[in-house]
């Protein structure tokens, strides 16, 4: 990922040996000295080795009552699905302590715009942020490889000055619905979506986006739902529910009420992390319920709560998992 950068910026790209405690500690020291470090952890599981230092950094703003806010951006590579390396190279659990902003982008466009926002928050604001990078998405080109649809290919969004239009904030989500492209779906602006017709919303992030989109297309192909009845929401910010997600869920329920729909809206939270306490959407459900915007009919589904064996994709979130959850949530939402 840093190909060519050391040659271009020899004083700014620094190698460290495989000692994560020292690496994380050094990054914090760099930040305290006034630099703006981007810290790469090559495989997500390796962050466990630096756990104490990592947690101290996350707590520092709180511990010092805001006196210490140097800012640090952590790039956590090697997350989720893959057949290489088993548990140590396909880690899919996320513990998010207070004081840490975590994002997981599903595509290059969102990564660039989102990372600009992260760099603003760490470099200007002094926050501690972590971007979780799914291995499988780094070189992915197509939603359906057999169709060569180019869904994940895009042109670099060059920054046109310093303004909000260049960034994807923590509060932003991206909506997807079926269309007539090769991939059979694409991003859509919210004002183009008739929420009163949407019966199912699938919320996901990272690797979960292509899995959710394929599930959406499968449900339509099977005749379970029509194109305008399903919406996929890419929600990259994982520390808490983004405001745009809360607004969307509120507007969805309001639209159904206003139009007297027989089918109450259903939501599936499709999380690529293992089901259990280290699954971000588990805490989303709690927050959304507290704020009163969680629809009555919902399901949450995640990876299998075990360790990932070598050479298999058995334990990762699948289209079948999401489809089963969607069917159950839709069944629950049908008024008798």
């Amino acid at each position, binding site marked *: 990922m840093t190909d060519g950068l050391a040659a271009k910026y020899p004083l700014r790209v620094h190698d460290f040996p495989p000692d994560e405690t020292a690496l994380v500690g050094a990054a914090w020291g760099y930040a305290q000295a006034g630099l703006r470090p981007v810290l*790469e952890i090559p495989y997500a599981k390796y962050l466990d080795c630096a756990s104490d230092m990592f947690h101290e950094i996350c707590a520092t703003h709180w511990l010092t009552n805001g006196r210490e806010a140097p800012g640090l951006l952590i790039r956590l590579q090697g997350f989720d699905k893959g057949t290489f390396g088993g548990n140590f190279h396909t880690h899919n659990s996320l513990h998010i302590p207070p004081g840490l902003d975590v994002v997981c982008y599903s595509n290059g466009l969102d990564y660039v715009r989102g990372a600009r926002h992260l760099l603003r928050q760490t470099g200007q604001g002094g926050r501690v942020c972590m971007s979780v990078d799914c291995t499988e998405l780094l070189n992915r080109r197509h939603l359906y490889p057999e169709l060569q649809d180019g869904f994940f290919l895009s042109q670099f969004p060059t920054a046109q000055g310093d303004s909000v239009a260049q960034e994807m904030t923590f509060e932003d989500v991206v909506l997807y619905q079926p269309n007539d492209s090769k991939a059979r779906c694409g991003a859509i602006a919210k004002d183009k979506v008739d929420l009163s017709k949407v019966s199912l919303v699938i919320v996901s992030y990272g690797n979960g986006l292509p899995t959710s989109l394929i599930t959406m297309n499968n449900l339509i192909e099977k005749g379970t739902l029509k194109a305008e009845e399903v919406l996929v929401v890419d929600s990259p910010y994982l520390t808490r529910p983004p405001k745009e997600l809360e607004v969307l869920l509120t507007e969805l329920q309001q639209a159904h009420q206003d139009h007297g729909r027989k089918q109450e809206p259903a939501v599936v939270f499709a999380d690529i992390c293992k089901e259990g306490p280290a699954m971000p959407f588990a805490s989303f459900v709690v927050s959304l319920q507290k704020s009163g915007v969680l629809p009555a009919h919902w399901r949450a589904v995640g990876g299998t709560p075990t360790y990932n064996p070598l050479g298999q994709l058995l334990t990762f979130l699948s289209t079948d998992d999401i489809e089963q959850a969607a069917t159950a949530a839709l069944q629950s939402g049908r008024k008798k």
Partner: protein
Amino acid sequence: MFKNLSRRFGHASTDRQSAYLSQNDIESAASRNDLHGTYSFFSSVSLPILTSNPKPFFHRFVEFCKLAVESGAISWSEILTEFEATAATVEKAFDAAANEPKITSREDLVQSNSAPIVSAPVAAGQAQKLFDYSNHREQHASGKGKAAAEVMRKHMTALFDEALSGRSPAGEHVVYLGEDVRHGG
């Protein structure tokens, strides 16, 4: 192996070691504490004694100091000055922290988890949510647009190039650290 490790302090500042250790054990551990002894040592002895007859249990620390002095990097009086200045800074910081107004509400505690969010500037006459995905994706399909369509990894490399050059919102001082990142990670 663990039985004779020197114990520097209790579990926490609230830990009452006298509840589970004898006074003799506590004092014995303190006497083997390089850091505790160092402060007492520097506070109580003069420079000639420091340089000629270091007490055995400060041996390692003073040996390092001797190496630094003999290499010409620093003098003994500079070491003592630095030590006293650091101690004074720590005391001052402690007093300042102890006298800060206390946080008494849950909301204020939660607010103190992180520094405030920094908003990006909005250009005059510009709507905030303008990003058009189709403009960057469909141009690939139609062959339009000057830039090549690339995978996510290439975009990430270009983004960090932008950051390292000082052109990102993080400003001038971005550095990139990691394991084997100099040859691509």
